[in-house]
């Protein structure tokens, strides 16, 4: 058990250590207000990272999530303000279009056998380009009060989006850890050929993970627009790298076949704790990025080392 989850254990210790040091450094860090605020800030990346865990565990990758987020934000503004749709309908359509973007990724990867890295590099450019072309650098403001609640309001003392995130986490844990679909994802990541011979629904599972990835990115876009009360076509730029960093830091193998939702959540917590804690300690955000890079490489070095020793 300990062996199987050694990466998660290392991360949990790391997270606890980071939180302890930061709590000693700054009295503000462990206050409920700061913790809730941190939850608010990490929701968008976290939602996308949950699904990215599935994508990477299946041996794939999705670089286009940041662009889908930008496109979704732009479409939300366009549907609502330019085309005069009721906002709830616009939100549903945006979720639908995000899923459609993901489905298209799945289509070119499954149907044409394109490597996911390159297929989604292409759609990264394509979706961002559509966002830029549709928005023509204009932003949409003046969102109604109820809409702002999604990103800025609280329910029972916890930010609304954190409730959404917790629900998504629960669903992700169950599906990846305890369902046939989750086992199929791991099987594809370990050996796609073997999974096919075993009669597993390989194509359907791939379609599902990429579609879910697009859906998560568009949900994150709605929350983000609600939080910052504006839409811009460059929203979500670089999101893919933050998300992949969290997932990989969380112990999901970039080659597929291995990874857990708990690991990803721990990865997200470590990153968020470092970012907020260091900024409270007066270290600028850029120093934090360096540390995240170092932590990422060192964690992987440690876990590859541990693995090769376990094998020997």
């Amino acid at each position, binding site marked *: 058990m300990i062996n199987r989850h050694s990466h998660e254990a290392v991360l949990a210790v790391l997270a606890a250590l980071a939180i302890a040091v930061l709590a000693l450094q700054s009295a503000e860090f462990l206050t409920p207000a700061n913790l809730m605020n941190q939850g608010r800030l990490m929701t968008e990346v976290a939602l996308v990272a949950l699904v990215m865990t599935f994508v990477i565990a299946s041996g794939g990758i999705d670089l286009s999530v940041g662009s889908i987020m930008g496109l979704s934000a732009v479409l939300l503004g366009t549907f609502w303000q330019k085309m005069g749709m009721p906002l709830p309908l616009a939100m549903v359509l945006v979720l639908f279009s995000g899923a459609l973007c993901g489905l298209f990724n799945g289509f070119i990867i499954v149907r044409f056998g394109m490597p996911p890295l390159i297929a989604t*590099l292409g759609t990264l*450019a394509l979706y961002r380009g559509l966002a830029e072309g549709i928005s023509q650098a204009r932003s949409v403001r003046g969102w109604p009060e109820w809409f702002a609640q999604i990103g800025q309001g609280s329910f029972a003392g916890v930010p609304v989006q954190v409730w959404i995130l917790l629900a998504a986490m629960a669903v992700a844990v169950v599906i990846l850890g305890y369902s046939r679909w989750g086992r199929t994802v791991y099987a594809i990541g370990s050996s796609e050929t073997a999974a096919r011979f075993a009669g597993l629904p390989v194509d359907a599972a791939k379609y599902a993970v990429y579609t879910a990835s697009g859906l998560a990115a568009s949900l994150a876009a709605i929350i983000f627009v609600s939080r910052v009360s504006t839409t811009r076509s460059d929203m979500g730029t670089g999101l893919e790298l933050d998300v992949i960093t969290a997932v990989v830091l969380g112990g999901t193998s970039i080659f597929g076949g291995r990874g857990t939702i708990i690991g990803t959540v721990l990865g997200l917590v470590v990153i968020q704790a470092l970012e907020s804690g260091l900024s409270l300690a007066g270290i600028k955000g*850029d120093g934090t990025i360096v540390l995240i890079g170092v932590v990422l490489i060192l964690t992987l070095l440690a876990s590859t080392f541990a693995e090769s020793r376990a094998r020997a």
Partner: protein
Amino acid sequence: MTDMTIDRPDAGAPMTGALRRVLREYGHELLVALAILVLLAVVGTINPRFVSARNMTSVFSGNAYIAVAAIGMTMIIVIRQIDLSVGALIGVLATISGTIAVSGAPVWVAWAAPVICGAAISSVTGVLVAYAGIPSIVVSLGMMAILQGGLISVTGGAWISDLPPAFLLAKMKVLGLPMPLVWGVVLTSAAAVWMRMSAFGRSLYLIGGNAEAARAVGIPVRRRIVAVFAIHGAFAGLATLLFATQLQVIQSTTPANLELVIITAAVIGGVSILGGTGTVIGASLAAVLFAAIGSALIFVNVSAYWLRALIGVLILLTVLADVMRRRRETRAGGH
């Protein structure tokens, strides 16, 4: 795996045989070149100012650094690796070079430093990939964070200004031609010949095509991987020289998504992400094609905001063609 085929003597029809071989080996490169010519002809007819010497010079020499960086990236992708940190690396190297230039050191030191530092920094990535066994996509992701964050932490976001005129390489001319253009052509040709003719260059295709086989025939695969990362870093340094000396100031940030532009150039130029095929000529031509498309959109009054969507479609079509061709070849070869 067209590059690995053994040359057959077509003694009967030397002309058509040679032509066919060029077409087979450089078909993709010719296609990209053709696309550039068609673009120039069509947009030039609509708006002659597009093909004016002035616009062409600014398009080609302003983007030559992407072509130069794409040379190194081509080698990286040929051996089935990737480097997401190259954009951040170019940003760091630009600041190193600029800092030396304003410090009063001889200008050649400011020019040599980014090439040497680029090779050194990129070798670290190479060692982590080759010897620690961490996938390059992850190592370079971490490197990107370290370089990007480190750059802004150290400089505090301050720009370097008052660069000495003798430092501004990109503004110089050789035989009346802009320096970046000359560099782009010379470096691309040299790298193309080297990758085609030298044992080292040819071994890269074998490593990318089948690393196990490469090891079996005695190629020191790990050392080669580190070497290729070092060479790639040196090319990033050369690209920096063309990029950072265009203006009087050097910003302490990198253009967003520069790494993706460089990777895209390599991919549209015909480098297969599956490893083992692709040439630096294609990558450089693709960089030229992007630059021309970006400029052409302005001249035919299409909002440049659509440029990225167009590039996305271009990537997908190119890779689709590559995947389809491989499938056909497998089917033809495997009965």
